[in-house]
């Protein structure tokens, strides 16, 4: 139920965006988030974007985990 799926915004028209979910395009409402732009990554929950995802942190997730685990060894 509380599933959230990340996707990339391709186009925005008023309160609706076309979002690319790894190749599948779907319409997602963006009423619940501010300052969202084309190219941003969002978290989709039942057809609504509930948060903008910082691309850098999402992409570097494994690196951040590794750095954290390494820091515990010191």
């Amino acid at each position, binding site marked *: 139920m509380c599933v959230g799926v990340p996707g990339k915004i391709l186009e925005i028209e008023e309160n609706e965006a076309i979002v690319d979910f790894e190749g599948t395009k779907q319409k997602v409402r963006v009423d*619940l988030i501010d300052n969202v732009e084309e190219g941003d990554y969002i978290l989709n929950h039942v057809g609504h974007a509930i948060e903008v995802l910082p691309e850098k942190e999402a992409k570097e*997730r494994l690196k951040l985990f*590794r750095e954290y685990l390494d820091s515990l060894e010191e």
Partner: protein
Amino acid sequence: MDKEKLADKFSKKIKEITPSREVRAIHICGTHEQAITQYGLRSLLPDNFDLTMGPGCPVCVTPAREVDEAIELAKQGVTIATFGDMLNVPGSEESLSDARSEGADVRVVYSINEALKIAKDVEELVFFGIGFETTAPTNAAILKSNPPENFYILSSHRLIPPAMELLVDMDVNFDGFIAPGHVSTIIGKEPYEVFANKYDVPTIITGFEPLDILFGVLKFFEQIDSGETKVENAYERAVRDKGNQKAQKMMTEVFEVFDAKWRGIGEIPNSGLKLSDEFREFDARENFEIELGESRDIHPGCKCHLILTARGTPEDCGLFGDECTPQDPHGPCMVSDEGECNIWFRYGRRPKMDI
């Protein structure tokens, strides 16, 4: 370093700092249980650590009476739209699926947005709106954008922190919470502070990838090890400290909080959302006569209410896997994809990890 190696490293680190006593954490999310069970994460965790599921399944906690309301409306000829899991949940006597097979117009939708489209083609449309803080704002957003006059909501939203507080009050024996990531995307850290400050219960906001969950569990054990109790955000890429304030504001404008019943658990103070007076024109309960008899939450032999409050597991239930299966469910925990019984039936309890 690939994911498997990172998972091993998390596992090793967790085991290094696990005390020798029995330790228990409760998570409140079917999506967490799904990931933990599907990926066999329990096999990477210490043997003396029990990570168990609490009342984190919206379909499971919706009282039979509210399912009965939807069925009654459907029988009156109103079109009902709801999420797929709600279709097969038993009410007191029957399910929406049964009503549909008798001719009622019940539609399954993935989103309230689809229900809005259906409203264009039918006389009256009631969206049976269930879900926690993650989902409630999506319905608030739709009501704030001028839905059609024939569109109504049967609201059965529930709130997570009051249910967590119930677990503390019930004296269910446990050491900390793995808090649900996407509920937290909306509400942020603040509503959990009471658990750390008042009850001394470590609370870790945790994401849903296998490594996110191991990271959350490591953070939990770090607090057990250090003795310092706090609310920590281990899912920073999707959870801001203050949550999504725009979504919170919409939720507050459209809904008001009330003392709500949870299926088989009873009433929990300030744990439900109903439409505020300003939006009563969209409230199915205000606009239709719904007369019901007695309701029945728990069917004979079903232990869903104990499983939802971390006082039992599916394996403690005599019906699990034999009489009660996803094809022939006796209770909501076996119906919903987010119910612990359904998840354990599909994946088994401790399968080998395969990532």
